[in-house]
């Protein structure tokens, strides 16, 4: 089995897993899009051995499948970056909720010593 066949199998399997997670609502559509894009790209690229060899030739890469790794790695970076953006948004939202809750709590509480 060549690296290309392995790559096709893994990409297809991965795509199926992602779709299944979305079907079961374990993964939101908005977050699955990047993963679907990733597996489809990997699938197409793995099918086109000539394309890979052409690129590695142009880039002067001796071992053509290394291009696959490069694609995979870049995609991982993109997804991690996306995740940290999501975390940033989530943490601002959690902070705002905490602040609102704290203020509401004080207003609800019976004023003892205050005023």
């Amino acid at each position, binding site marked *: 089995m060549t690296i290309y066949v392995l790559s096709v199998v893994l990409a297809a399997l991965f795509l199926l897993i992602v779709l299944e997670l979305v079907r079961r609502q374990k993964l939101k559509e908005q977050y699955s899009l990047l993963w679907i894009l990733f597996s489809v790209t990997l699938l197409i690229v793995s099918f086109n051995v000539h394309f890979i060899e052409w690129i590695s030739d142009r880039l002067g890469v001796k071992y053509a499948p290394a291009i696959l790794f490069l694609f995979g790695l870049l995609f991982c970076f993109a997804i991690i970056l996306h995740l940290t953006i999501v975390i940033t948004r989530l943490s601002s939202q959690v*902070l705002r909720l*905490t*602040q*609102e*809750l704290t*203020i509401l*709590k*004080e207003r609800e509480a019976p004023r003892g*010593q205050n005023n």
Partner: protein
Amino acid sequence: MKSTKAPRVLVIIPAYNEENSIAAVIHDIHRHVPSADIVVINDGSRDLTEQYAVRAGARVLTLPYNVGIGGGMQTGYIYAKRMDYDIAIQMDADGQHPAEELPKLISKAVSYDLVIGSRYLETTSFRSSVMRRIGMVFFSGLVSLVTGQRFTDTTSGFRAAGRKVIELYADYYPIDYPEVESIVYLKRKGCQIAEVSTEMRLRQAGKSSITPLKSAYYMIKVTLAVLMSAIRYDRTAVSKP
């Protein structure tokens, strides 16, 4: 403020495990500015800060977990905005900001958007370590460069904010090490900022949380934040409540 009524003043005191000094700080404010309301932002303290503050006669907002100084301070500003205060003053819970300087800040806050109590504007009795001094000079230089206004004490947490700043800070306030960046943010929004010379004491209780590693993070984070706010046109991206 054209109204003849005296401005409604709220003193915001963020506190995290400050049971040893909080009551004294509150009494100090009551003595010097009896008309001011006091709100203690109890940032998830695990000691008796809340009880001591309530007993001393302050309102207390208790956050369910520790959100850090920026998030706590912003809670105070959101509260000030909702309760329609004209002036919000931020003050440390450890006793380093003397309440007798409050009238100075308040009277100037009527004609400026933000007034900063500075340790270095004139020679005061305040002394600090060499490293600290270097950091202060660096940030003063950076902020002066970016804003075009000279500031002597950019890390001072002794400040009085008018209505405009209360609203701006309720919208956006830096999460950690907020002092320096929050000045640049206001200047970008066209606020008028003034410094007044104030005395400051050494902390009455508690100890500084600064370690060498934290100082390095502090310098880098704040420098990045200042440069970023300088090239940011409008910071309204943060979702409004």
